[in-house]
C-alpha cells in the first residue's frame, strides 16, 4: 500500500467534483423542494461552452492565463443563464405538480440538452480534447505523484464551496433565499421578490455546475456529451446520503462516494468490475441506517 497518498489525492479530487455537483442538488432542493436532474447536463453544457471559449480565445491570440479566465467566465455565465431559464420556463410552472413529475421533467430536460450537444456540436458524439491551461507536471513524495494542476483544482473547488456557503449564510441574497426556503408565503409577505429569488437561486446552483464542469475539463483534459449523466446520478446519491438541503451533507456525501470507489479498486483490484456494486450496496445500507441522510435535513419531512 505504498500508494496510499496517491489514492488519497485521487479520492480528494474526485470527491471535490462530486461534492460540488451534490451541492447544486441540495441548493435546488433546499429552496424549491425540487430534484433537478438536468444538473449534470448543465455541467456538460458549461464545459462545452468553456471549450468553445478557449478555441475562440486561442484564435484571437490571447495568452494562456487569459484563455483560462475567458473560458471560466463563459462556462459560468452560460450555466447561469441556462439554469435560470430552466427554472423560469419549466420548473416554476410545474411547482405544484407531484415531485415525481418534476423529476421526470428535469430528466427529460437533461436528455434534451445532452442530445442537443451530441447532435449539434461539431462531431459531438466523440470525446473532445480540452486544452491544458494549467501548469503541467508535479512532484513526487515517496511513491506518490502530486500533480500541480490537481492541487490547484482541489484548492479552487474548496474555495468555491466556501464562497457558496458564505453567499447562502452571510449575504443579503442568501438571507432572502433561506427565507423563501423556510416559508414562501411569509417571505412574500415580508416583501421578498419571489419571482426573482427563484431564478437567481437556480443561477447560483448552476454556476457551481459550470465551475465543476471546468474543473472536470481541466483535470481530465477530455470532455464528452454524456459525462453529466453519471455525475448527476453520483451527485444525487451524494446529496441524498448526506441529507438533502444540507450543504455540508452534500460535501460529505461527495467525498464518501469518491472514497468508496477508490477504496474498492485500491484494496481489491481483481474485483474492480464489482466496485459499483459495492458502492451501491453500501449506499443502501447507509440510507437504511440513516433514512434522512447522514446529516438529517432541518424540519422532519419535506417530501
Amino acid at each position, binding site marked *: 500500500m505504498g500508494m496510499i497518498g496517491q489514492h488519497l489525492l485521487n479520492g480528494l479530487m474526485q470527491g471535490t467534483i462530486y461534492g460540488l455537483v451534490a451541492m447544486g442538488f441540495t441548493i435546488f*432542493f433546499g429552496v424549491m423542494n425540487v*430534484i433537478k436532474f438536468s444538473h449534470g447536463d448543465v455541467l456538460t453544457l458549461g464545459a462545452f461552452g468553456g471549450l468553445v471559449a478557449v478555441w475562440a480565445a486561442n484564435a484571437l491570440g490571447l495568452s494562456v492565463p487569459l484563455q483560462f479566465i475567458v473560458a471560466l467566465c463563459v462556462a459560468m455565465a452560460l450555466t447561469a443563464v441556462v439554469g435560470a431559464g430552466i427554472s423560469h420556463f*419549466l420548473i416554476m*410552472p*410545474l411547482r*405544484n*405538480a*407531484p*415531485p*415525481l*413529475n418534476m*423529476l*421526470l*421533467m428535469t*430528466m*427529460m*430536460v437533461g*436528455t*434534451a440538452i445532452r*442530445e*442537443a450537444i451530441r*447532435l449539434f456540436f461539431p462531431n459531438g458524439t466523440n470525446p473532445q480534447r480540452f486544452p491544458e491551461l494549467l501548469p503541467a507536471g508535479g512532484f513526487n513524495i515517496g511513491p506518490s505523484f502530486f500533480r500541480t494542476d490537481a492541487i490547484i483544482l482541489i484548492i479552487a473547488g474548496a474555495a468555491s464551496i466556501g464562497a457558496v456557503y458564505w453567499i447562502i449564510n452571510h449575504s443579503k441574497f442568501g438571507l432572502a433565499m433561506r427565507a423563501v426556503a423556510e416559508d414562501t408565503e411569509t417571505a412574500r409577505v415580508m416583501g421578498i421578490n419571489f419571482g426573482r429569488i427563484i431564478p437567481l437561486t437556480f443561477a447560483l446552483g448552476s454556476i457551481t455546475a459550470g465551475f465543476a464542469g471546468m474543473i472536470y475539463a481541466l483535470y481530465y483534459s477530455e470532455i464528452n456529451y454524456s459525462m453529466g449523466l453519471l455525475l448527476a*446520478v453520483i451527485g*444525487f*446519491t451524494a446529496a*441524498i*446520503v448526506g441529507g*438533502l438541503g444540507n450543504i455540508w451533507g452534500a460535501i460529505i456525501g461527495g467525498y464518501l462516494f469518491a472514497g468508496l470507489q477508490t477504496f474498492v479498486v485500491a484494496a481489491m483490484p481483481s474485483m474492480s*468490475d*464489482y466496485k*459499483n*456494486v459495492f458502492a*451501491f*450496496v453500501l*449506499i*443502501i445500507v447507509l*440510507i*437504511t441506517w440513516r*433514512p*434522512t*441522510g447522514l446529516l438529517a435535513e432541518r424540519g422532519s*419531512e*419535506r*417530501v
Partner: protein
Amino acid sequence: MTPSSRTLARGPVWPLFVAVAFAAVALTALVLIENQKLLGAALAITAAFCFCAARFGGVAATEVAASENPWLLRGLITVASLAVIFVLRDDNFGLLMLATVLIYATICLGLTVQMGYAGLTNFAAAAFAGTGGYTAAMLGQQGGLPDALVLVCGGLVAVFIGSLLILPVLRTRGHYGALTTMAFGVMFNVFLDANDFFGGPQGLKLPGINLFGWDFTNDIHIFGLVLSSYVNYVILTGILTALAMIFVGLLDRSWVGVWFDVVRLDETAASVFGLKIAYWKVLAFTIGNFLAGLMGAVYAKMTGFIAPANFTFGDSLVMVSIVILGGIGNRWGVLPAALIVVLLPEKLQFIQEYRLIFYAVLVIAILTMRPDGLVARRVRKLRAEASA
C-alpha cells in the same frame, strides 16, 4: 339517448360502444401505419377526438356507462381485442409491439399499486422484471419445469429479491426511497455485467413458451387461416393484462385501496387508526414486484434473448414515466401511456438519430400541458364505494 329499461338513473350505454370501437381502431391504425404523414394525421385525429370527447362530456358519459355495465365493458373489450388481433393476424412486428406494450402496461399496473396507491417509490421496476427474465432463462437451462410454473417462479423470485430491499424501502420515503431503489437498479445491472454465471454482458438465449403442450413459436392454423405465432403472445399477455387490470381495480375499490390511500396520504393518521403501515407497504411492494417479475419472464421468453442491457436504470425510468404520463394512480392511464412510450420511438425510426431529442421534448410538452397525466386520478367517492 337510449335509456336502459331497468333503472331510471342509468345513463346511455352507447358511449361505451363508441369508446371501445374508437380505441380499437386507433390502436390498429397506430400499429399498422408506417407512412409518416398518415401517422401524423392519425395521431392528430385521435388527439382531436379525445379532446372533443373530454370537452363535450363524452368521457364522463363513458365512465358512467362503464361503471354501470362492467360486464358489458369487459365483453366489448374482449370482442374488440379479438377484432384487432384478427386484423393484425399476419403482421409479426405489429403483434410483437402489441405484446410488448401489454407487458409494459402490466408492469406499470404493478407500479401503480406501489407508487400510485401505497405511495412507495420504485425506480427499479426494470431490475425486478429482469429478475423474472433471468429466472426464466436459468430455469429453462435446467429444464424439467413446465413453463406455466417457470413464469410464476419469475414473479416469485422477483418478490424474494425485492424482500431483501424491504427494510430500506420501509424506512425511507420520497427522494430517499427513490435513491434506494435506484441504487438497487444500477447495482443489478453492474452485477449482471460483471458476473459470468448469468451469461455476463453477452446475455442468455432461451426458448419460447410452451404452455400445456401448446408451442408458442408455431403459427396458428385455424378455420383455414394462418395466424402469426406472435398471436399466441398477444393473447397470453392480453389475458394477463386483463387479469391484472381487474385485480388492481378490485384492490382499489375494496377496503385495501382505502387503507393504501390512508397510508400514502398520512402515515400518522394511519397509525392512529391502528393500521400497520409496514404491512400495507410490504403488500403493495410484493404485488408490484410479482407483476414485474412475471411479465419480465414472459418478455424474456417472447424475445428469446435477455442481456443486462435490456434491464437498465433507463428502462426503469421508462416504466416510471409511463405511470406518470398516464396519470399516477389511475390504472386506465397506463394503457395509452404505455402505447405512446413503447410505440412512439419505434414509429419515429424515420428521423433516425434525432429520435431521442424529439421524444424528450415531447414528454416535456405533455408534462407541461397535462401536469396530472393523460388520465388524471379520480377522487374516491366514498358513498359510491360503500354501496358497491
